[in-house]
């Protein structure tokens, strides 16, 4: 058991573990909606568009999370408005905003002396650099996201499953759609330090996709997704400690390996199971 406890003598590792678990849970629970509603591209775009916010906050010495939050919320609203216009296809509109703002972020950061190191931190996370203050921000924003998902559970389920039902029930569909975009933006901010911008999409999609292969009801899917997400955070951090690999990448790799295993071996829905049954039925 030494190998489990050894790393915990360092405070920065304990903080990193707590952050990884919180982010693993929040990303994976929200990720169930990202997967079910086919919003993966939204998630990736929102993750990338916070970069200029981070860059500005960094250059003028404000908290990075604040800059990211402001830009994340603005682009969530911007994407929402753009996709309501019929004259541009949704993914085209998102692509334009996504690439443009990301380029702005890179351009701003390139004015700093420490350009490559900083950019790498923002792109791939800096899990071992999580401070106490960061932890508070991550915990608070994570709690807000989970509480909102809980409060609007019924309504979000309806708009995700059947939009016509949402209209005939006269639910505020537009508000709920924007709410999801805003929640994704807020979650992006919490996950910045753990996996970084470039790998964020994996935290939204991979645990939830894995859970969808194992469960048949949304609450169970959320629970399993959260377990996989938080386990990936912890296991990834240990892998990073002992194998000396980048922490964000390690977290995502663990989640990906779990997905592959489940995809192959899941009872009932797994690749091998179906293949085996097919040959037996023949």
């Amino acid at each position: 058991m030494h190998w489990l406890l050894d790393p915990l003598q360092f405070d920065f590792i304990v903080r990193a573990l707590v952050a990884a678990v919180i982010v693993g849970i929040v990303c994976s629970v929200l990720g169930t909606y990202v997967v079910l509603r086919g919003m993966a591209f939204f998630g990736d775009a929102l993750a990338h568009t916070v970069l200029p916010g981070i860059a500005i906050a960094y250059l003028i010495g404000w908290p990075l999370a604040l800059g990211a939050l402001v830009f994340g919320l603005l682009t969530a609203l911007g994407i929402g408005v753009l996709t309501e216009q019929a004259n541009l296809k949704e993914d085209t509109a998102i692509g334009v905003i996504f690439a443009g703002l990301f380029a702005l972020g890179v351009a701003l950061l390139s004015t700093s002396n420490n350009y490559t190191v900083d950019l790498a931190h923002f792109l791939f996370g800096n899990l071992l650099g999580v401070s106490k203050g960061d932890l508070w921000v991550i915990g608070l924003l994570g709690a807000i996201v989970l509480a909102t998902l809980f409060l609007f559970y019924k309504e979000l389920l309806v708009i995700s499953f059947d939009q016509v039902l949402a209209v005939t029930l006269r639910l505020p569909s537009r508000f709920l759609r924007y709410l999801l975009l805003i929640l994704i933006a807020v979650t992006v901010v919490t996950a910045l330090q753990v996996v970084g911008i470039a790998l964020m999409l994996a935290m939204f999609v991979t645990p939830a996709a894995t859970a969808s292969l194992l469960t048949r009801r949304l609450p169970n899917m959320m629970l399993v997704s959260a377990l996989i997400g938080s386990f990936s955070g912890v296991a990834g951090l240990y892998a990073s400690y002992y194998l000396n690999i980048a922490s964000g990448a390690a977290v995502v790799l663990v989640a990906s390996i779990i997905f592959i295993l489940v995809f192959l071996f899941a009872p009932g829905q797994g690749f091998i199971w179906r293949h085996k049954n097919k040959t037996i039925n023949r």
Partner: protein
Amino acid sequence: MFPLGYQDTDHKPGTPTLELKHVTVAYSAIGSSFAQDVHYALKDVSFKAEIGEQIAIIGPNGAGKSSLLKLITGIIKPESGQILMFGQPPSQHNCIAYVPQRNQIDWSFPVTVEDVVMMGRTRQIGFFRRARPLDKDVVKASLKRVGALELAKKQIGELSGGQQQRVFIARALALETHLLLLDEPLSGLDLPSQEAIFEILASLRQDGVTVLMATHDLNLAAERFDKVLLVNKRIIAFGKPEEVLTTENLLAAYGGKAQNSQMAVSA
């Protein structure tokens, strides 16, 4: 239907369940790009559906049957004209229920039969609240009424086509519908499954639920419905089946573009 004291907007006495007055729907409203020769998905549509009436909507493919149903739900907006439900705009009512075509639903979605029917209760439960015992009773009663109680715990992808339709009708019952819209619910179903759906619809008459069903099947439209609405972009005929399903009317609706334009000229 269930004595629950749930508040929909008051229904003005003496008004029909549904009334359309000169309603026109542009192609752009339904997201279609075939805008060159015909500009309207539906043009100048007027008809009334009285309380408890069961009406079949028939017409060729692309005639606007689905558009008409979606128009009534409110998901597509008319370009001009007026829609009234019990004398008021439909946006003030949440007692419309829509049973979608089966290919419009993601059957792998992680919800059980029970979950789907409970969705119909969303409004009655209200924001920030959880299902009460009452709601669970209504879900059970609704499932029982369509003969699907034993399916409650199944994931929706595990159902047969007929069962899927019955579950969506149960959802309509759970939301205490007064206007049930069904889009091609019978296509692909075997005869016993079709019969099961007609039995449920027959039982809705006593509750005063008005039913509009888009269908391809002219025989069923003639035999099982009070009225038939024959459409092809506009209303060709509306009334009792024997009045509507005449050779002349059917030629006008189905006979191809030549007859169509002749009819338009002589009209």
